[in-house]
C-alpha cells in the first residue's frame, strides 16, 4: 500500500491530492491534460519535490516535509516508463534492460525478460532500429527488470499509433499481472482505464474529483446498466433530430441512435472514447438454432 498526500503550487496551478495505491493492483490516474497527472507521477518518483505532504510505501517513508525526509529517485524502489520511451540510444536493447539490474547474478534473467516481451533475438539491436511499440516494450521491461515496488507509467501508449496501442494494452495487462507489481498508470484514454485498471483516480485541475473502480467512477452506482461496451467513436451521421453513432469495440462495430442534441451537449467527436450502456428491461433474446 502506497500512501500519498501532496501539495504543490506552481505559478497559477495548485496541486492538492491525497490517495492510496493498493498493493499489487493497477491504479489509473485519469484526467484531461493539464490536470496534474504527470506532476504527481514525477513527485512520487522523486524527480520533482512537493511543497508539502507525505509519501510512504508500507513503513518506508519516501517523502515527508515535516521530518525533512526526501529520498532521491535512485533510493525509491520505482520503475518509470516515459511517454517517449527514453531508451538510452547508445546502448543495445539488452544493455538498456540490464541498466537497472544491480546484481550481476540476475543478468541471466535477461533472456527470459526478452522473451516475455516477444523480443528474443533483438538483444543486440539499438533502440533506433526498433519500432515504437517495440521500444515501449523494451522500456516497460527495463523498468520491471529491477523488480521495483512501484511501477510508474506516464501515458506510455500515447506516442503510438492506434493499432500498436491496442496490441500493447494486452501486453501491459499480461505483464503487470505476471509481475504482480503495484502500478500507477497515468492516462487520458478511458479505454485504457477500462482495459487495464483495477482502480481509478479521476483528476481535474489539480484535485481529485472521484475515485473507485472504473465501473463505479464512470457509470455511477445508481445506473443499473447490465451491458457496458467501451469503444471509440468512428463515425457520427446526424441530421437535425437524430444521430447514428458508430462505436468500435475490439473488432466489432456497434451502431446506436441518439438525439442530435445529446451529441452537441456531450460535444461528441470522432475519436472520442465512449461507454455504451444498456439496461436489461427491453432486451430481446434470440436463440440461435443450430442444425444438429
Amino acid at each position, binding site marked *: 500500500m502506497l500512501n500519498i498526500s501532496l501539495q504543490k503550487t506552481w505559478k497559477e496551478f495548485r496541486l492538492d491530492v491525497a490517495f492510496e495505491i493498493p498493493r499489487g493492483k493497477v491504479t489509473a490516474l485519469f484526467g484531461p491534460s493539464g490536470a496534474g497527472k504527470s506532476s504527481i507521477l514525477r513527485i512520487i*518518483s*522523486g*524527480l520533482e519535490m512537493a511543497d508539502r505532504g507525505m509519501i510512504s510505501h508500507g513503513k518506508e517513508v519516501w517523502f515527508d516535509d515535516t521530518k525533512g525526509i526526501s529520498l*532521491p*529517485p*535512485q533510493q525509491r524502489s*520505482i*520503475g*518509470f516508463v*516515459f511517454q*517517449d520511451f*527514453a*531508451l*538510452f*540510444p*547508445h*546502448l543495445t536493447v539488452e544493455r538498456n534492460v540490464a*541498466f*537497472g539490474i*544491480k546484481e550481476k547474478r540476475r543478468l541471466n534473467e535477461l533472456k527470459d525478460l526478452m522473451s516475455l516481451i516477444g523480443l528474443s533475438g533483438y538483444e543486440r539491436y*539499438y533502440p*533506433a532500429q526498433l519500432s515504437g511499440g517495440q521500444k515501449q516494450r523494451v*522500456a516497460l521491461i*527495463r*523498468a520491471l527488470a*529491477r523488480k521495483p515496488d512501484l511501477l*510508474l507509467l506516464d501515458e506510455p501508449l500515447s506516442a503510438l499509433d492506434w493499432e500498436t496501442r491496442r496490441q500493447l494494452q494486452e501486453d501491459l495487462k499480461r505483464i503487470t499481472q505476471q509481475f504482480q507489481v503495484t502500478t500507477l498508470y497515468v492516462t487520458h484514454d478511458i479505454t485504457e482505464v477500462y482495459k487495464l485498471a483495477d482502480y481509478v483516480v479521476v483528476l481535474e485541475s489539480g484535485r481529485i474529483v472521484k475515485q473507485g473502480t472504473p465501473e463505479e467512477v464512470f457509470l455511477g452506482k445508481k445506473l443499473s446498466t447490465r451491458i457496458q461496451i467501451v469503444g471509440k467513436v468512428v463515425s457520427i451521421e446526424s441530421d437535425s433530430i437524430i444521430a447514428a453513432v458508430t462505436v468500435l469495440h475490439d473488432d466489432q462495430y456497434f451502431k446506436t441512435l441518439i438525439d442530435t442534441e445529446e451529441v452537441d451537449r456531450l460535444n461528441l467527436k470522432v475519436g472520442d472514447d465512449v461507454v455504451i450502456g444498456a439496461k436489461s428491461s427491453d432486451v430481446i433474446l434470440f436463440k440461435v438454432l443450430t442444425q444438429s
Partner: protein
Amino acid sequence: MKYDLQSSNFRAANMPNSTSPESGLKRFGDKRISDLLVESRQANVNRQRVQEFIIEKLLFAGGMAAILFIALIFIFLFKEGAKALFLIKPIEFIGTHILDFDNNRVFACMWQPVGESGKYSIVPLLIGSFLVALPATVISTILGGGCGIYLAEIASAKVREIVKPAIELLAGIPTVVIGFLCLTLLATYVQNAFHTTFRLNAFVGAIGVSLVIIPVIASITDDALRAVPNELREASYGLGATRWETIWKVVVPAGISGVTASIILGMGRALGETMIVVMATGNAALVTGNIFSSVRTMTATIAAELGAVPQGGPQYCALFLVGAILFFITFVLNLVAEMIINRMRKKLRL
C-alpha cells in the same frame, strides 16, 4: 483557348457553361468578386515564387562561394608548394646525408634552409607541431571536457551564468598576449618545476595553446551535453542510477558525437595555432620525442621565415609546401571528425 480581353472576363469568354452570370453572386465591375480574389491570390503566389527563387539562388551562391574560396586557396597553396618538388629533390624533404663530426656520412633530418646547400627536412617541423598539439589536446580535453560536463550537468544556473561567459572570454584573449605570458612567466615556472634543459619548450607551448582550445572544447561539450534529452537523465535516475552513473553511463555517451567533434576541432586549432608557439616553444627544429625539448612547429616556421625569403626561391616554395601539408592534415582531421560524427549520429539517430 480564346481570351476575351475586351471584357477581361475569362470565365465568361472561355467556359461555355458559365456564359451567363450566375445569379446571387456578388459582382465588382464586370468581374465576380471571387474571381478577383483568385487573381490577387495568384499574383501573391507568383510574387512569393520569385522571392523564393531569388533567395534560394543567393543562398546557393553563398555556399558555392565558400567552396570556391577553399578550392582557390587549395590550388594556390599546392601550386606554389609543388614548385618546391622541382627545385628540391623530394627525398630532401625527409632528410639528407651529411658529414658528422667524425666525417661519417649519416642520414639526418634537418630544417636549415639557408646557404648553398639548404636542408629542407619537414620531419622536425611535423614532430614539432604534433609535440605541441597532442599534449595541448590532451590537457584541454581533460580540463575543457571536465569544464563542459560541469557546466552542463552539475553547475547551478547562477554559476553557469558567470562561468560560461568567463570561459568564452578566455577564447577572446589575443594569442600574442598568451604567448607573452608563456614566454615571461610560465616558462620560468615550468623550468623550476621540471628542471628542464630548455627554458622554452614544447610543453610550455602546449599549455599556452591549450588555453586557447579549452574554451572551444568546454563550450561545444556543454552544448552537446545539454542537447541530450532530459528524459534520459530522468530515466536513468528512475532506474536507480546515481548522479555520477547518470553522467558517465548515460549523458556523456549519448552526447559523445558532440564531445568528439569538439576534441577534434580543438586539435585542428592546436595544429594551426601560430603566435603562441612562435613565442613559447624555442623554435629549434630538433628531431626529438622529448616534450621538454625546444621544437619548431610548421606554423611557426612559416610565420617566422616567409616574410624574409626571396619570392620563388627554394625556401619560399618549401614553406608553401609546409603550408600545403598543414592544410592537408587539418583537412583530413576535419573530414575524419565529420565521418565519426555522422556514423555515431546514424547509429544513435540523435
